[in-house]
């Protein structure tokens, strides 16, 4: 060890200096990042940008004079705070959306926003207001369903226009949540649901009663038909037969009522034989 130092002092020092120089000037750009090289505060070149030619790898810079700003190359996430949106028909809705964006023009981004965090801070209020504007033009139910797609496309285009100023590109905007605000709107929705269920319960009960009534009536009708078919064969005899049954039922004292008194006239059919042959 000592001997090496004695014999190759100059080359060892040169090697060390070269190593230190290399460490200072070389930088690695990973796949996930893009880099803007800033020379004395002025962006001069980029590495591994979405459209650029120079890709990830190891690169050199002039130490101290050139500075490297590393920027995320992947798709970033812009989250919105819960925003209360007033719909066209004056209903309030709590909306939460997110946008996905990436830095497509890193030089502009470095100049205008500094960091990706700066881009987020700049874009968030824009997303909020664009979304509010766009949804505010729609009715409550449209917000929920059909026009959601076109509304979001509009929001994305609007936001994208603004984002380009910061070197960013908006890929997608999605509504994450659409909720009713706490308090009166939520309570009235609950009330509406409740009354809706009450109506349903009532309808079901009424339908049950109706069906029951119909079933009874049909049974009565069928019974009547059975009677008619049977008794209609000889209405005269039925009259007699039924009368006999009826007398039994009416005059029989078996059901605990007072017994009946009958005054018979001598002309009565029953007494025909009683009088003897005339």
């Amino acid at each position: 060890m000592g001997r090496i130092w004695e014999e190759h002092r100059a080359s060892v020092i040169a090697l060390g200096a070269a190593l230190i120089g290399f460490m200072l000037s070389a930088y690695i750009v990973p796949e996930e990042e893009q880099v803007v090289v800033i020379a004395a505060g002025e962006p001069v070149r980029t590495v591994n940008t979405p459209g650029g030619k120079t890709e990830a790898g190891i690169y050199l810079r002039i130490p101290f004079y050139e500075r490297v700003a590393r920027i995320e190359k992947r798709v970033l996430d812009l989250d919105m705070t819960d925003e209360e949106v007033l719909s066209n028909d004056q209903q309030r809705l709590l909306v939460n959306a997110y946008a996905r964006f990436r830095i497509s023009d890193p030089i502009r981004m470095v100049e205008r926003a500094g960091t990706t965090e700066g881009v987020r801070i700049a874009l968030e209020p824009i997303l909020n207001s664009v979304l509010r504007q766009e949804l505010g033009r729609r009715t409550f139910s449209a917000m929920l369903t059909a026009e959601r797609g076109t509304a979001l496309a509009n929001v994305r285009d609007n936001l994208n226009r603004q984002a380009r100023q910061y070197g960013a590109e908006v890929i997608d905007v999605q509504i994450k949540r659409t909720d009713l605000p706490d308090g009166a709107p939520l309570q009235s929705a609950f009330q509406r649901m409740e009354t809706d269920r009450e109506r349903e319960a009532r309808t079901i009960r009424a339908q049950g009663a109706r069906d029951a009534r119909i079933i009874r009536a049909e049974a009565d009708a069928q019974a009547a038909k059975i009677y008619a078919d049977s008794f209609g064969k000889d209405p005269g005899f039925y009259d007699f037969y039924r009368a006999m049954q009826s007398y039994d039922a009416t005059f029989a004292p078996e059901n605990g009522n007072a017994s009946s008194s009958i005054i018979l006239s001598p002309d009565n059919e029953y007494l025909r034989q009683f009088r003897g042959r005339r």
Partner: protein
Amino acid sequence: MAGKKSPWGGGSGKGPDDGDGPVGENGDSGNDEPGSDKAKGPRNPWLPPGSEDGGRRAPNIEDIFRSRGPEGPRRGGGTGGPGFRLPPRPGGKSWFPVAVAGIIGVGLLTTSVHLIDPQEKAVVKTLGNYTRTLDSGMRFSAPFPIEVVDVEDVTGVRVVRIPETGQKAKLILTGDQNLVDLSYIVRWNIKSLENFKFSLAEPVETVNEVAEAAMRASVAEKTLDQTFSGQGRAEIEQRVRLRMQRTLDAYRSGIEVLGVEIAKADPPADVVDSFRDVSVAEQNADAARNQASGYAQQVIAQAQGEAEAFDQVYEQYRLAPEVTRQRLYYETMERVLSKTDKTIVETPGVTPYLALPELRRRAQQAQSTTTVTPQEGQ
């Protein structure tokens, strides 16, 4: 030496010149133990008995350096313990280059040989630039600063639970502006590791957000009743899966959505009673229908019975109409008249006195005394 002392207490690492035993209370100099009054407090239960200075579990770094005295760790080499010296290397050279070479060797080995499990894959970045993907098995790469290997579970199914367990239920608006309390599970894995690694900054969080957006959009297309029905649920699950996949593909996320399962779809807790009332109403309606059906059976059976009875009698009547008729008449009259009061007015011209007051009195008696027998008036 140090090895014989308690490895936990402050006595360890003190070196041979520290004469105090491990039992010496506050035996160390004051500046050595700034928290020496801590020893008076409750004893640290993790310390072995006898070690009273339980202020710390391990010696701090200053102690180690100080106790080693002039033979600091740099001179002594990383491999030796305190005061420990390796036997001299043959040839009288230092062990230092050997140790450095050893560390570098281990480093090379651990960063260039990779054992990748069956469900895993790995991306390799050569000087930051993505170069290749490693399949499972024993794989090699250039050592650390040159190539970086990032191993990830690819085929293993990951499960996202929304809302997360313990989180407050989120109510989702349906297309008919009702609210439903929904919880669901999303299963996903990675279909393209390169995209997964290099397209999205936060892929896992993205899955959650995309799932929530897709679920709310899909529920908004359905009515409340549909979300409760089995078929509607299946449709929602299917749509959420397709929506998520479309969105994630648009992000080039490399994520495959394997399935979405709705674990629970309930009415919100505030209105659950009225939903129960609906099912009660259904029961009530069914009960009414059942009762009516019972009545119908009864009425029809009775009709059939009576008709059959008449038919039977009529059958006989037709064989001998006059006789049967007379017989039925007399039999009935017999039954009726035998049990009633009879008055026969034989002589023409006699006006019968109708004992109406008498009849009324009898009727009243019959009503007031419930036990009255029919024969009472005779």
